[in-house]
């Protein structure tokens, strides 16, 4: 476990010593602050729009950070040849994958924490209330969704040679799931065979990331979701993370190091 945490520590250090996070964080803050300073149409409920746009920015930024940070981990180790001294230590390839995953996932969690603290402060300054449990549910589910994205990106980094191609494919895949994933079963009904079976197979195979999108809980101050469903969503994410990490370990086991 110590080995995995050591590897995770390096991935976390990399995130906070690079400029990516700071740039995205500052851009998000600036956009949100500018929006918060104006009251368009004198709408009393304008704060909801502000929250919606701010959360959308946080979602986009977190996906950018998760995918780009993870996609370069193994290719950078290979390109800089640090993979060689690393694997020459008493360390298994599975530990390396788990360490990289844990590091990127924790780094994403810390990033989310910064974003949500800022968002909470902004929303509370306008609404004069802060439903902490709603924030907890939304942020936790968001973090677990990022866990699936990190595992997917890590798996992609072993399949696709260039981090840029891996990042692009991951972005398209994740955006596709978030935008149309939930409608695939409805599309399948309208198709003839074998298109119907194929579409159904895709519908059941893909991780339904849209299930973790509970932004409305904090935008509209809706009541908390049942903890039973919250727990099930976490288990669902953990199952996909495990499956993707096992696939990554199997691919990496056969991969030439040099």
């Amino acid at each position, binding site marked *: 476990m*110590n*080995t995995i*945490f*050591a*590897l995770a*520590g*390096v991935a976390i*250090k*990399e995130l906070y*010593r*690079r400029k990516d996070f700071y740039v995205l964080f500052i851009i998000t803050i600036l956009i949100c602050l500018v929006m918060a300073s104006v009251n368009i149409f004198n709408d009393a409920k304008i704060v909801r729009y502000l929250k919606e746009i701010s959360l959308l920015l946080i979602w986009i930024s977190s996906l950018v950070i998760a995918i780009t940070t993870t996609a370069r981990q193994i290719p950078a180790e290979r390109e*800089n*040849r*640090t993979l*060689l*001294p*690393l*694997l*020459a*230590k*008493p*360390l*298994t390839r599975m530990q390396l994958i788990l360490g990289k995953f844990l590091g990127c996932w924790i780094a994403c969690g810390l990033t989310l924490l910064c974003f949500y603290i800022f968002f909470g402060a902004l929303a509370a300054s306008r609404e004069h209330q802060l439903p902490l449990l709603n924030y907890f549910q939304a942020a936790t589910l968001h973090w677990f969704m990022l866990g699936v994205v990190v595992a997917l990106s890590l798996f992609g980094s072993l399949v696709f040679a260039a981090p840029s191609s891996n990042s692009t494919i991951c972005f398209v895949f994740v955006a596709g799931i978030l935008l149309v994933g939930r409608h695939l079963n409805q599309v399948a009904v309208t198709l003839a065979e074998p298109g119907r079976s194929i579409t159904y197979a895709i519908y059941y195979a893909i991780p339904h990331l849209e299930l973790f999108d509970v932004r409305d809980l904090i935008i509209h101050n809706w009541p908390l979701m049942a903890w039973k469903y919250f727990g099930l969503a976490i288990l669902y994410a953990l199952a996909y993370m495990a499956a993707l990490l096992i696939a990554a370990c199997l691919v990496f086991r056969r991969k*030439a*190091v*040099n």
Partner: protein
Amino acid sequence: MSVILKTEKLHVAFSSREFRQTAKIALNSLDLEVNTGEVFGFLGPNGAGKTTTINVLLGFVPPTSGSASLFGIDVRQPIARQRIGYLPEMTYYYKFLTAEELLRFYARIFGLSRTEADTRIDRLLKLVELEPARKRPIKSYSKGMQQRVGLAQALINDPDLLILDEPTSGLDPLGRMKVREIIQRLKNEGKTVFFSSHELGEVETVCDRVSIIHQGELKAIGSVSEVMGQRASLEKAFLDIIGYQLQPAP
């Protein structure tokens, strides 16, 4: 003297991805033995199979047939790497870390306690003369300094066997001299060093025994004087052994 590194009839063939292309033989029936406490030079022209041999020893490439062992343990077992240090040819370490952080990271992989890690980091940074730069990020280091931090990471577990792949490649004469001094010091401490190099002068200076490999086959092995025989220099011996004919000047 006990054998610390051994290969027996080691054969490595890389299958070609091209249709109807035969497999490329990288190593052919290679027998090597390195004894405890000796500095062993592993020589050969580019493409001779030096790096492939090292990759097999480190478990990166599985042998097609034959065997390789470190401390009597099959190299495919991760535990065989517990007592070795490895410095690959020109590596660009995590540039966002400092030398101290890098060494601490590798120390954690070996499961060293914090106190033990602190002691070793201090000692190694002094050994490789990077003490004044220990808090500076690696991205600000020169090539020579990066190579020396690489040498320090290879020594963090106080290894009994050090495997160095062209440790002086790309370094200026001063950098080479410093690396050579470190190898000499390790030899005096009783460490076993196995290193590949193209710098024959350096091999002649520091090695107890050398081997010459060409086209995946072992061509010569023995002490520097044994390999040189009646020839004037190790360079001349090397060229003769690999079958290179010097052309007379026009």
